[in-house]
């Protein structure tokens, strides 16, 4: 009876919190570098007993808990810390160290969907649509904006990418993992052409100037990987009015956001505009363009997404151009182009860690080139099938593997217009195929260290060499906000189509990249320094006969500094490239610096957004030292240099929201100072005539009014410039 009562009392006593002896837990908390951390939350796991660290990192609190337990420290910019401790009377002072949260290394492991890969994220540059649109002189063109980044040459008479001593063919463009064979508009020579694709189509623009992983093939110098958008959030309509054309588009999205599609149509005629800015080219028919873009996205089940993107463009232009072979030194040139692209991809999430991707890409490009004496019709088609399996085997090991199969059909026909009737020109037709298989593993032996090993094999039916095996390796070490990486790899590319007709004479052109990279990222500020060496071999030569004996090298340093937090609304970057390169290829009799290489290139780009009044002002200054040009009378080959290039571009935009419409008025000036820009010279074989290849206008003006109806496109501030 009595002990029942006692047990009840005991029960009641234990159900209430008893008063035990209090123990003082105290100590100091610091980061890796020994800097005290204030505001850290230090407490005993599963309890509310704890305290915050003060300005000097000191913390102290009393606890009634005793014995073995776990102490937790949490700080907003540090990785959570858990330390097992034994609480005894008179605890000595604790000394805790916390590790900074890192984002660079984790980026390296993340394998994103849609064929886009962040594997090279620590080295590649990523841009957003806004970055592209607001770069003065970039003209709203993805490639125009990339040209202000280090590693890219400033070649004013060609709009393509020339990266680190590589020619424009060495830079590849991919959309959702599928190759775009003709990413630039066709046009007459010596006028820079823009890339075909509006930055608004993409949510990710990743530009890699070397040392890229095994996921990318057939590119010697650079890979521009674009990722198309997912479902838009709202149905919307957009209208663009420019001095040379109009554009209209509509996006539809189903209420559950499982189906969406969009169409964009554009028409432009540059005639009146070129007249207005005083374009120097002697146009017979200024360029006329018709463009259509279409996309469709459909969720399939819970884990599948089907995407289709289609593009079609027709363009036609005719001008008088320099032609020292013609009687008048000038002859008419007509360039008519039609281009179609279809990209179909399907991504399926197998489970939390594994994804499979299948894609089919089709490119069809036709150029008709008419001179008074002949005409050429060139049709190039490519089918690509791509498979990609990616996943995580463990937290330390991620794997990507896949294959690419390409089928090409090339058809080049030249018709001499005044030839003898018996002289028939045989069409040059070639069907070719390429097979690539690749795999890549990222392994993280230590938390701060990541090793990436890749292998890519390539086989090409039209080439003499057997299956190529290209190993690629990179190591990235991260310490706080700093990351260091070293990488090396072999890369190969097939020669241009027109040289492949002499079946199995040529080989893959090859290059080995060696890179050292340092990067520091600190909230809104990025510093990147990269040194590289590229060793080229088996470059194609056209003299004395077609062969694969060319070689060369490129070495240099790229510097990039970007600050987006210096002042409210201000974003600026500075990029500098040093390049030393020589090569012997095509018809070069000696190894020398090629025409597309300047030793020093500098860009300053600044943008200021004045939010309260909805005004945007931007400017850029670009400098490049002279490049070699060919003078037949010169004593040594390519020993002459063009003058240095200095250019200032400005842009200005006013943003207004009226009712449901979002309006952007854009005004931009290229070559603001009106300085004469000489990119190259054309010199007659006797050396008597020397014609400078210049910027085709003194100042270029752009005026546009862009209207978005519905809300989704309102983030397209400074909407699509040309």
């Amino acid at each position, binding site marked *: *009876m009595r002990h029942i009562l006692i047990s009840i009392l005991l029960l009641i006593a234990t*159900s209430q919190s008893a008063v035990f002896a209090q123990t003082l837990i105290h100590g100091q908390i610091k980061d890796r570098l020994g800097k005290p951390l204030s505001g850290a939350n230090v407490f005993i796991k599963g309890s509310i007993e*704890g305290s915050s660290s003060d300005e000097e990192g000191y913390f102290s609190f009393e606890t009634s808990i005793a014995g073995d337990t776990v102490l937790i420290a949490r700080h907003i910019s540090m990785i959570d810390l858990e330390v097992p401790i034994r609480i005894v009377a008179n605890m000595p002072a604790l000394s805790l160290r916390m590790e900074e*949260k890192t984002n660079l290394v984790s980026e390296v492991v993340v394998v994103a969907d849609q064929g886009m890969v962040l594997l090279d994220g620590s080295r590649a540059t990523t841009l957003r649509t806004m970055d592209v649109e607001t770069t003065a002189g970039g003209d709203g063109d993805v490639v125009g904006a990339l040209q202000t980044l280090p590693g890219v040459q400033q070649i004013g008479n060609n709009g393509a990418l020339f990266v680190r001593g590589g020619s424009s063919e060495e830079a590849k463009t991919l959309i959702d993992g599928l190759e775009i064979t003709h990413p630039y508009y066709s046009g007459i020579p010596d006028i820079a052409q823009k890339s075909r694709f509006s930055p608004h189509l993409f949510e990710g623009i990743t530009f890699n100037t070397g040392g890229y992983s095994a996921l990318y093939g057939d590119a010697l110098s650079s890979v521009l990987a674009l990722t198309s958008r997912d479902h838009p959030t709202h149905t919307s309509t957009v209208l663009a009015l420019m001095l040379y054309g109009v554009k209209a588009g509509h996006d539809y999205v189903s209420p559950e956001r499982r189906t969406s599609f969009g169409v964009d149509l554009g028409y432009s005629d540059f005639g009146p505009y070129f007249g207005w800015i005083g374009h120097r080219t002697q146009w017979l028919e200024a360029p006329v363009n018709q463009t259509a873009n279409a996309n469709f996205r459909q969720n399939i089940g819970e884990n599948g997404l089907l995407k289709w993107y289609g593009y079609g463009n027709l363009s036609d232009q005719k001008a008088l151009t320099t032609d020292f072979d013609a009687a008048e030194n000038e002859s008419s040139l007509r360039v008519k182009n039609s281009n179609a692209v279809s990209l179909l991809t399907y991504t399926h999430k197998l489970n939390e860690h594994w994804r499979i991707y299948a894609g089919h890409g089709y490119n069809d490009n036709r150029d008709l080139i008419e001179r008074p004496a002949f005409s050429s019709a060139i049709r190039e088609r490519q089918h690509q099938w791509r498979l990609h399996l990616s996943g995580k085997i463990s937290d330390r090991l991620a794997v990507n593997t896949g294959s690419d199969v390409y089928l090409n059909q090339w058809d080049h026909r030249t018709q001499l217009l005044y030839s003898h009737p018996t002289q028939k020109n045989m069409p040059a037709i070639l069907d070719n195929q390429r097979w690539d298989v690749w795999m890549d593993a990222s392994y993280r032996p230590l938390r701060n260290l990541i090793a990436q090993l890749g292998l890519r094999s390539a086989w090409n039916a039209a080439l003499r060499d057997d299956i190529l095996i290209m190993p690629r390796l990179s190591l990235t070490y991260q310490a706080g906000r700093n990351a260091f990486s070293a990488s090396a790899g072999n890369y190969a590319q097939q020669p241009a189509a027109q040289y492949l007709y002499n079946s199995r004479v040529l080989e893959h052109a090859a290059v080995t990249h060696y890179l050292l990279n340092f990067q520091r990222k600190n909230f809104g500020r990025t510093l990147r320094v990269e040194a590289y060496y590229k060793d080229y071999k088996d470059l194609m030569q056209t003299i004395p006969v077609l062969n694969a004996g060319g070689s060369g090298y490129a070495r240099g340093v790229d510097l990039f500094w970007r600050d987006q937090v210096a002042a409210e*609304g201000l974003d600026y970057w500075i990029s500098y490239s040093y390049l030393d390169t020589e090569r012997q290829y095509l018809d070069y009799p000696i190894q020398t610096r090629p025409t597309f290489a300047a030793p020093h290139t500098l860009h300053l780009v600044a943008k200021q957004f004045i939010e309260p009044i909805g005004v945007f002002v931007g400017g850029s200054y670009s400098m490049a030292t002279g490049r070699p040009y060919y003078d037949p009378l010169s004593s040594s080959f390519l020993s002459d240099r063009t003058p240095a290039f200095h250019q200032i571009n400005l842009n200005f935009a006013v943003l207004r*929201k009226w009712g449901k419409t979002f309006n952007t008025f854009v005004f931009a000036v290229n070559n603001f100072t009106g300085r004469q820009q000489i990119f190259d010279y054309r010199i007659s074989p006797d050396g008597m005539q020397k014609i400078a290849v210049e910027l085709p206008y003194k100042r270029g003006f752009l005026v546009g009014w862009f209207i978005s109806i519905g809300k989704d496109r309102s983030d397209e501030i400074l909407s699509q410039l040309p």
Partner: protein
Amino acid sequence: MKKNRFLSLFILLILIMLAGNRQTNAQQVVSGLLLPKVEQLNKGNLSKQDLQQLANELERIALAHPKDWHAQYYAAYTYIELANHSPKKEIDNLCDRADEFLKKAMLVRPDESENYVLKAYLLSARINVNAMFRGASMGRESKEQLDLALRRNPNNPRAHYVRAMGIYYTPAAFGGGKKKAKAHLDASLTAYRQYPAVSVMDPDWGRQALEKLLATY
């Protein structure tokens, strides 16, 4: 024997009472812990240090009582307030922490209007990091969250206030502005006035800040 049976019954009763008590006890314990913090938060005029201190205390309570909605909610709210008092480079990390607790609050009470208001409030804190890049997309997302909040409780004064505040700080060029915000601010004040008195523990913030905004006219 009869006595013994009575005693057994008595013990059983006590045990049942104790067991029941334990449950309500846990809630009372959390309420007891939270109440002083909530009162401090509602009083306002807190320095960054005060907020950091409070955030850490509420974080400890929230982690120790993951099923308590109030604990999760106030931990999230305090981190957002702290973000609003912090330099830009700290905002995203603080908002990530707020998001961690807000997600838990949403798991406990998926249909609570206040959760969505807090999500919208969190997004407006994030916009401050880079209004130029984030304004349009996050502003839109914030509005969607407020729509969800108002669908669950059309009278929620905080939903009206966060919307009015968003309009107030959006430049006129982008469809916002002080002038345009006036009507919305007035409407949210009315919503606050008409809102029935809440229990001491329930969300009760926003009115002071609203009155401050109204005082600028």
